[in-house]
């Protein structure tokens, strides 16, 4: 078992000697290739994208992306191509449907609820203070901290 894990570990680094991959496309289309590569998972690495990994498998997939881009396929078609082959697992960001929505919505919900709680805390407190008719201490100057520094200097 450990041998297998070690092999997986080390597969992130290239075998030598080997082919260096197909030639880059023109800058606009190559940028698309790289952007797509960043979204696709290298099948043998630990969560690296095929654009980041130097393994031979990842570079073969990058070449495949390059071919598909050169054939004029759209980004969605290329993603669908990889999902059809490797399953949703191939996408580094889960597609937004079904249960997957949870990973996007729960954090947003947390922030909203938290903001609501803070808002209520502050409002309640302000009302309570106003009811207590506490006279606000008027600051002697702009910065209370600097006032304290000055007061200390005078000692």
């Amino acid at each position: 078992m450990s041998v297998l894990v070690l092999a997986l570990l080390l597969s992130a680094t290239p075998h030598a000697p080997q082919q260096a991959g197909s030639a880059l496309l023109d800058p606009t289309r190559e940028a698309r290739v790289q952007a797509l590569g960043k979204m696709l998972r290298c099948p043998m690495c630990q969560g690296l994208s095929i654009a980041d990994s130097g393994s031979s498998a990842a570079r073969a997939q990058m070449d495949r992306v390059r071919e598909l881009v050169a054939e004029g396929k759209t980004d969605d078609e290329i993603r669908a191509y990889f999902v059809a082959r490797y399953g949703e697992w191939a996408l580094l960001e889960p597609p937004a449907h079904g249960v997957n929505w949870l990973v996007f919505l729960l954090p947003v919900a947390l922030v909203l609820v938290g903001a609501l709680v803070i808002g209520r805390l502050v409002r309640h407190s302000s009302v309570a203070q106003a009811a207590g008719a506490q006279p606000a201490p008027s600051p002697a100057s702009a910065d209370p901290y600097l006032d304290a520094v000055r007061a200390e200097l005078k000692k």
Partner: protein
Amino acid sequence: MRGTLGYAFVLGGLLCAIFGAVVGIEGGLRRRPATRLWVERATTGFFLCMLGANLTMVWALVAHDFSVQYVSHVGSRSTPLVYTVVSLWSALEGSILFWGAILGVYLFAFARAQHDSRGRNVEMALGAMLGAATFFAFLIAGPANPFGPVSPVPPDGPGPNALLQNHILMVIHPPMLYCGYVGMTVPFGIAVAALLDGHLGEAWLNALRRWTLLAWTFLTVGIILGSWWAYAVLGWGGYWAWDPVENASFLPWLTATAFLHATMLQERRRVLTLWTMSLALASFALTVLGTFMTRSGIFNSVHSFTQSDIGPTFLVFLGVVVAVSIGLLAVRGPMLAPEDPLPGLASRETAILVNNLLFAALTFTILLGTVFPLVREAFFGVRVSVGAPYFNRMAIPLGIAVLFLMGVGPSLPWGRADAGTFQRQFLVPLAVGLAVLGGCLLAGLRGGAALTTFALGGFVATVTLRELFLPTFVRMREKGEKPWTSFARSAARARRRTGGYLVHLAVVLVFVAIAASQAYVQHTTGTLMPGQTLSLGGYTVRFTGLEEGADPHRRWVAARLDVTTPRGGHGTLAPRMNFYERSTDPVGSPAVASSAFDDLYLTLLAFNENGQGGSASFNMWTFPLVGWIWWSIPLFVLGALVAAWPKRRSVPVVSEGSTAAADAARGTA
């Protein structure tokens, strides 16, 4: 022989931990300070036993005693001495043994520091910490025993994992992280004691903050060094992959950071005490979760050494920690919470609350993203990936909000802001931020996230520098002191304030460096014959030839390149591939030329020794400002040291309203 000796130490440590935990918790519950002496003795015993066990293991490693199981797994006669010693933490069993030693040191230091304190439930705190120690001692004695015998004794071993003996950073990065992880045990113990007693006095709050700050500092350095190691060793050109284990180290850092800010609120007003204690407990629980994720092998990662059977034990311990924490918070929490009112919306207090919300949201998001694939597969049988694109999408807005708040919070007064606050505190920093933005646009830089970060960086740096140096200017003007004397004195009179702002400056550096290196990275790749060149971002490299060599533990092939930098400098770089005896695949070593502006990063992809002279393929990157991430470490450490250094006398420098609140709080405590 060494195996038996080491195991005896482990058993001794286990007994001390069990005894101390039972006596401490029992004595703490019944409030019998007389038990303190015995708990302290048990702590010393645990410390000495763990030290003994670790020294025995190092001795066995250095002596190549392959009759000890762990040595037979990671030792090798051809490994250099430094990596032999370091292999103490290069695999599962050894790293848990090492964890035990650090835990011993922390507990011993805490017991010494609290030796003379009265009126605090130290026996309870130590009892809870020794409870955690019992778990780790049990792991070392049972499921992860490194001292087991080997028969027949092999003549040599395989040596440590090739990736882990490739770079000197491996010598310091793991101990730093462990010191950070293990350090969270102390705040956990204090929090448990405070909750059981039903009150958190000023002295306990102080101890809680200082020990958390210590662990936080180690964790910060450990995380940054870890990213540096990934950058310098793994050769994919990145420093942060949102790998589950990287996330695991980041989670307790986030909660500890939130906690350190929340304590400022605690000192001035009794608000959200329960929340603050939850953060201290969560930081510990998350270190346990992190270790579980790292060591149980449920994730495939650079860090999961091997499939092992310590997973269930860890899961049980994690369950106990979470159950105890929630139980204590639920049962004892209400006793801690005479809540003071909060001032208006525009106040430092509210800014700290929002800070805590943002850090909680970051923690939750990263935790969710990390465990979601496990949950999805376990309950729905579908394999999904949650990787860098998700984390970047979610974390970048939250990170930018944190950066913005770092400028807003320090500019708002404690209590209530008046009408003039905006003009007085915000106008100049905002102008600086806009000027930075304008400058960047004029320089032709584009990209929303990066430009926002730079503009906010200018805003926050201005606020921070003002807060750092205004007291100095006041002293210089009104007392006629020399600049340096004046700065030293105003810093010495407000250490935590000064330290905190130094750390804020370091954070701004890291933010700017990450934004620049992510947004303006350049990349190319090419296959070169000797004499051919490749150019990128003003750098030109000329391939001059292949070179072979051998170290005692590996062979390597390096490609030599002459480098011309954009500023006219010359140098040579030699990215290489290392071939370890017992590893079939090569491990690449990238070559990096660093400057204050950018890094040139080269990896050797492939080489071909046939033909005329042999060709080689390279990956070539330039990363603007990336080095600033690691160069921020001294500033982080300096800030933390300034803030945590024990003070001889305290000068209360707080505003009127908050002094009254603090007095009231002390009265109820």
